[in-house]
């Protein structure tokens, strides 16, 4: 591997070095680098690989006192949830939320970036940008508080506006039909400005000559956007699209859990929250691990699929 370096080192050789000796010298040369990798190596082993070994809990009658390795094997008994209608409702809630979030959350930053791009006043543009990506830096808990404060039935701003316009108060948090809109709107509100940064950078990187040529051809602003800007940022859009695919089962525990209450539970329970509740709250480790395993497998297939797609269409690979 490091033949050259070994040759260059002025050592008096009595006999030619064997292959293993050369290899060892190569490794020895990089001993500092290996030492620098070691802590990370150990950490990944402890916090990523060991839990992978713990997946066997899905096929075991896990007992805290016996530990993972000595608990009894029980085959697929923990997968009984697959026949449970409750689980399939949770699954459909998850799909609903992720699909809606994608349908509204994906185009929103592109539109914002296109609109921002049309603003000529630099200061105004900067202010809009700074303010719109601010929510990205607050926690979902704070967002839940904001939702609560704005939508509260008794003193919330939205209900005050509704009554002042002569409409009835709505108990937003205590209704099934308002839960999804609240999740979608709050997630767009939180992330739209931040995600727009990437598209704005892509627009800024476009060749100005393309616009000049379009203007010569008599294209107006709308035509320029349609025929120059959008095709120009298409590769970026494709990459972002591919990057979202692996998260298609990830409805967002951090966002959803704080907004849950007994009334909206029929629509708000998603796989993530379900696993936390059955596993960590109620202590059904086996079934919760089994659900997690199925999610991990689906997630894995989505990542691999996305990677295939990006190899085929995007000229870029994720890994």
């Amino acid at each position, binding site marked *: 591997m490091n033949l050259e370096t070994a040759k260059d080192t002025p050592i008096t050789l009595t006999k030619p070095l064997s292959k293993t000796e050369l290899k060892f010298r190569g490794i020895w040369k990089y001993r500092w680098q290996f030492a620098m990798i070691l802590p990370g190596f150990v950490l990944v082993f402890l916090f990523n690989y060991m839990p992978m070994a713990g997946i066997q809990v899905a096929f075991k009658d896990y007992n805290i006192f016996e530990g993972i390795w000595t608990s009894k094997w029980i085959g697929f008994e923990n997968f009984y949830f697959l026949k449970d209608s409750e689980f399939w409702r949770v699954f459909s809630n998850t799909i609903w939320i992720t699909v809606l979030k994608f349908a509204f959350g994906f185009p929103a930053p592109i539109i914002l970036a296109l609109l921002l791009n049309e603003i000529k006043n630099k200061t105004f543009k900067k202010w809009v940008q700074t303010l719109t990506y601010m929510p990205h830096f607050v926690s979902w808990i704070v967002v839940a508080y904001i939702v609560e404060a704005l939508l509260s039935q008794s003193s919330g701003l939205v209900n005050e506006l509704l009554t002042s316009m002569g409409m009835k108060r709505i108990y937003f948090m205590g209704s099934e039909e308002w839960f999804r809109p609240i999740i979608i709107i709050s997630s767009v509100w939180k992330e739209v400005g931040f995600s727009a940064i990437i598209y704005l950078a892509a627009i800024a990187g476009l060749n100005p000559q393309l616009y000049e040529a379009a203007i010569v051809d008599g294209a107006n602003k709308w035509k320029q956007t349609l025929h120059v800007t959008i095709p120009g940022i298409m590769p970026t859009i494709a990459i972002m699209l591919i990057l979202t695919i692996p998260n298609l089962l990830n409805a967002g525990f951090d966002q959803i859990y704080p907004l849950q209450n007994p009334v909206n539970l029929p629509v708000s329970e998603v796989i993530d929250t379900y696993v936390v509740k059955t596993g960590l709250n109620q202590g059904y480790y086996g079934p919760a691990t089994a659900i*997690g395993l199925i999610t991990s497998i689906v997630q894995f297939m989505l990542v691999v699929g996305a990677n295939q797609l990006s190899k085929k269409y995007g000229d870029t690979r994720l890994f």
Partner: protein
Amino acid sequence: MKISRGEKTFGVFNTLLLAILALSTLYPFIYMTALSLNEGLDSLKGGIYFCARAFTWINIKTVVTNPLVQDAFFISIGRTVVGTIGTVFITGICAYALSFRKLPYRKLIMIYFLIPMLFSGGLIPYYIQLRNLGLIDSFFVYIFPGLLNIWNLIVMRSFFENIPDSLIEAAEIDGANPLTIFWRIVIPISMPMIAAISLFTAVAHWNSWFDGAYFVNDMSLKPLQTYLQNILMNADAAQNLRQGSASVSASSNAAVAAASRTITPMALKMAVVILGTLPVLIIYPLLQRYFVKGVLIGGVKE
């Protein structure tokens, strides 16, 4: 160039739309600040939109003097400082070592680090592992599991790979070992990237609440966001926060006692939220120019 009437209308409309959008992101923060600075009972009458009507510091004061909130605040500060320094250091040295193109077994080691991005054991095996390591109910559960951030490892490695080899070789010839080179040459020229990664790591630490909620039971070890989550979802916790204010009123003078009777759980909640948000909102405009670069490094890969 002539500007058509349609484009002019669009320009006005667009400016207006974006102004509304910007205000709608800013407004909830103004609303919460107003509520936290208004007398609680007065707020219940409604009509608080931009400014406090019956201005008072009592909500903020009650929250800041509450021992549980104080504990939570210092836990949050502690985990953010220790966690950020630790993570950026461990991830940084690992990424730097992996940026050497001739490192033996480099590909194999990279695969080792990439596999966890594709597949994970899931929450329950992770929890069992934390328990086996004795991290449950310990401050270090906030620190150790995140010390190596695989995503940042990739970002940092590709940044380090772009540092000219000649710079490193020159230092090598001068007899510097890789650690010295890392410390004296690589870090100084990587500062913008390191600042961006540090900011993201720090914000993630500050905003994290899940580990505090499920991996720690001791109330005095909970970070601020977990405490916030606790009072959001648990009526008793909100009541406790209010009871804390009762003891404040007992110990202070009559005027304060009278004022504290107007405190409502809602006003106190808003005050804690302000406390939990303010540090991030103060820091982020200062570091903006760094993180915009950071997003681009992380988001658009060549």
